[in-house]
């Protein structure tokens, strides 16, 4: 009967169209920005927790209405930056919440595994991420930084690359970020940019802390030894412009080691010129400059360090780079605290730079460890011998030089101060910084501290005490 044929045809049309939406166009429909289902689905997933190295809960899921889950951050603003936030109403993620979203939301497993789970009636549940962070030291870092206004502290275990402290002030409370108006307020001008992770996203003129890089390059390239004698008078003409020492002190003929202890600018300016742009560029790259830190953290929440002009990276070989001033951490150098921590961690670890990492391991809901971040050597920027020599020079800085404020009873600390001048000439605005590692003969912690601005403060007086307090918390 022809009529039945027509009806069959019409129904075939229905099947065809249903197939179109369920199979052929399904992916495009699921990804459609108007489709609220993926977001709602996330609300129904019990995300895994994020824990500190000692088991302190940094983020966990809490039951909400109608079978949904919300996110709670028991430590409030303390870990706002490294842990980040996950907010469905904003539709946004940041930090570890974002980088580890796949395992946290339980999408890490195979397609087959999730089908098996579905058949067993298991609800989708995320894995727990256990970090390398240390809450006690993080708290001290935040407290110390809070007194200065804005800044960042990064502390690494140089032997493994584990990030023990990653603090940035001002901070924000991830518990309130989804509340109406809060996100906008945090992003508004005049808020002090609390969402910015100053440890990885802000770059600063490193000042004299960069002399560590220059010294390491000078010795490792075989052109200098710690005992090489250089004239440290002031001023000296570097790149055609006079360079001054602090207080315009003329030091006469001094060793490289003495120049480091007293942070003599003109000596390092001359060394920078003598090494040349190529050698400096080579060693900077080996330490990780000119690319984003190899950290397990969202790429666009990290910044590559190096010379920068108008916000863009400028190769060291560029004619616009003043290599003599770059060698003392000035010129157009823009370096993240994370990058400086990596530099001192490499020196502390006998010249081997371990890849920094925030995640220690991932544990599934049944308690099985499904992923462990093994320590790995990211690069070997300098030889063990060079590292030992720079290590000794940095011990001298703390023992008898500009960094005595970091001294800890019973623990030998190696460090380097930095005080970059910012703002207009004569405004006396500085950017104090400090890098260090300890114990010097068997380093367990490498640290970088940057304070965003200070009225006439020095690395040795403003940043060094912060480093001291955090080192003490981590080593005792």
């Amino acid at each position, binding site marked *: 009967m022809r*009529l039945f044929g027509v*009806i069959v045809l019409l129904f075939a049309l*229905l*099947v065809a169209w249903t197939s179109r939406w369920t199979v052929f166009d399904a992916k495009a*429909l699921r990804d*459609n920005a*108007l489709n609220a*289902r993926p977001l*709602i689905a996330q*609300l129904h997933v019990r995300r895994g927790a994020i824990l500190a190295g000692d088991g302190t809960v940094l983020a966990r899921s809490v039951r909400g209405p109608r079978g949904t889950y919300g996110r709670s951050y028991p430590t409030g603003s303390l870990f706002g930056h490294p842990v980040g936030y996950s907010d469905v109403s904003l539709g946004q993620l940041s930090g570890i919440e974002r980088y580890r979203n796949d395992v946290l939301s339980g999408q890490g497993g195979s397609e087959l595994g999730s089908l098996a789970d579905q058949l067993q009636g298991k609800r989708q549940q995320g894995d727990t991420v256990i970090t390398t962070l240390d809450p006690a030291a993080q708290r001290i870092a935040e407290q110390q930084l809070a007194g200065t206004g804005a800044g960042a502290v990064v502390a690494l275990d140089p032997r493994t690359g584990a990030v023990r402290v990653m603090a940035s002030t001002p901070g924000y409370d991830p518990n309130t970020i989804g509340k109406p108006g809060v996100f906008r307020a945090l992003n508004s001008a005049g808020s002090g940019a609390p969402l910015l992770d100053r440890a990885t996203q802000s770059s600063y003129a490193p000042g004299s802390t960069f002399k560590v890089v220059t010294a390491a390059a000078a010795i490792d390239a075989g052109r200098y030894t710690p005992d090489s004698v250089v004239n440290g008078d002031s001023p000296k003409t570097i790149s055609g412009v006079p360079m001054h020492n602090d207080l315009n002190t003329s030091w006469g003929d001094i060793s490289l080691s003495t120049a480091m202890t007293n942070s003599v600018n003109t000596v390092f300016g001359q060394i920078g010129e003598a090494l040349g742009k190529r050698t400096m560029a080579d060693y900077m790259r080996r330490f990780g400059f000119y690319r984003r830190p190899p950290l397990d953290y969202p790429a666009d929440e990290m910044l590559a360090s190096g010379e920068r002009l108008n916000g863009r990276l400028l190769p060291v070989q560029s004619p616009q780079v003043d290599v003599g001033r770059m060698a003392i951490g000035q010129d157009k150098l823009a370096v993240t605290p994370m990058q400086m921590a990596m530099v001192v961690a490499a020196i502390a670890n006998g010249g081997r730079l371990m890849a920094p990492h925030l995640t220690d391991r991932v544990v599934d809901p049944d308690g099985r460890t499904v992923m462990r971040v093994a320590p790995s050597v990211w690069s070997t920027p300098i030889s063990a011998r060079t590292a030992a020599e720079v290590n000794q020079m940095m011990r001298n800085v703390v023992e008898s030089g500009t960094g005595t404020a970091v001294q800890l009873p019973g623990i030998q600390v190696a460090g380097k101060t930095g005080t970059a001048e910012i703002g207009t000439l004569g405004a006396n605005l500085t950017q104090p910084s400090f890098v260090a590692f300890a114990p010097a003969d068997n380093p367990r912690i490498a640290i970088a501290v940057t304070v965003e601005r200070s009225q006439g403060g020095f690395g040795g007086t403003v940043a060094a005490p912060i480093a001291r307090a955090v080192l003490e918390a981590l080593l005792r």
Partner: protein
Amino acid sequence: MSARNRELLGLIPASLLVTAGFAAVFIQQGSLSNVSLTYGAIFLGLCVAAHVFLRIALPYADPYLFPLVAVLACFGLVMVYRVDVTLARQQAQWFVVALGLFVATVVFVRDYRKLEQYRYLIAAGSLALLVLPRLPGIGAQVNGAYLGVRIPGVFVFQPTEFAKIGIVVFLASYLRDTRQVLVAGARRVAGITLPPLKHFGPLLVIWGVAMLLLVVIRDLGSSLMFFGAFLALLYVATSRLSFVVVGLLLFAGGAWYLGTHVPHVVDRVDVWLDPLDASRYRSTGYQIANSLFAQADGGLLGRGFGQAFLVTPNGGALLPAPQTDLIYAVIVNELGLAGAVAVLVTYLLFVQRGFKIALLARDSFSTLLAVGLTAVFALQVFVIVGGVTNVIPLTGVTLPFVSYGGSSILANFVLLALLLLVSDRARRPS
């Protein structure tokens, strides 16, 4: 095996399905109780009661129709239960009332050929039913279409569901009378066979009524359903394809004109052409866009009973009208393409049995009645499923036996009763 024993056998899968379905939904809700078994048992009891009645009243009727309806109805009950427990309870009560109406139809319209005597009364009544929702005070506008009549405190009565049966009865009767003249008096004009003008008039009137429906109740789907059934009857009555072609062209022309000139219909057509337009998403496009999103979410095998998202986190409707108009989208979301095809195949089997009854019928009124009822049933499925899948603009008709809705269930059980009556007469040994 006798027809009735086959029918009894056919009821077993239906009762198993309803029990398994309820059990699945209960497991999803985390509390498997004996309520699922109770629902299954009550449903099975009702089916057996109806079966025993058929054994006595219509021993020769088609044995497959009733089990197919039972499968659809219990499947619908499970789906409605999954959407809203309270509605499912009401739906179950409507089933009891509908079975009562079913029995009453079989008993009181036993000689359905007597309906022919009242055909103009039935036609007038049906048209009145169709216009009813437009009358001020009692009409209820749903999504811009006038499909309901609000009976305060009871429910929203949907007259189209009953009007479709009345109009089929009228058309079957009218065409039985005029089919001879329509064929014999036909002339060929420019290679197309046209019926004689004298009888062409009434056909034009019916076309006009369909167009009027489009304007009055503002519903392309209903009008497509009625006019499609009319064309099916016209074709069976006259065996002239050309009549159907002319009818289709007239309908297409009218629909095109209205689709470009009547504002409400224009809106519908715009949404149909681009269902995912962002500027309409918050208003007219919300329903169809979310229907498509829900289907995409279902995929090949679906998310499983109770797993589709029907409400937003703040309690708003994510998928509007999930228990009525968009129930097919919920089916696809939870059971996937596979489940949806199974449902469509069940409908096709019903339609096949309906046409089989028409073939076996011994008089032309019976044949036309069976064809008309089956065609209008099939077209209703096409209109709502086609609307939900955006094959045609979305309209608010129910998915027969599956959607929640008292009028729909009552009317469709009357339709079933008429088909079984025709079948019993056709297969009765003389």
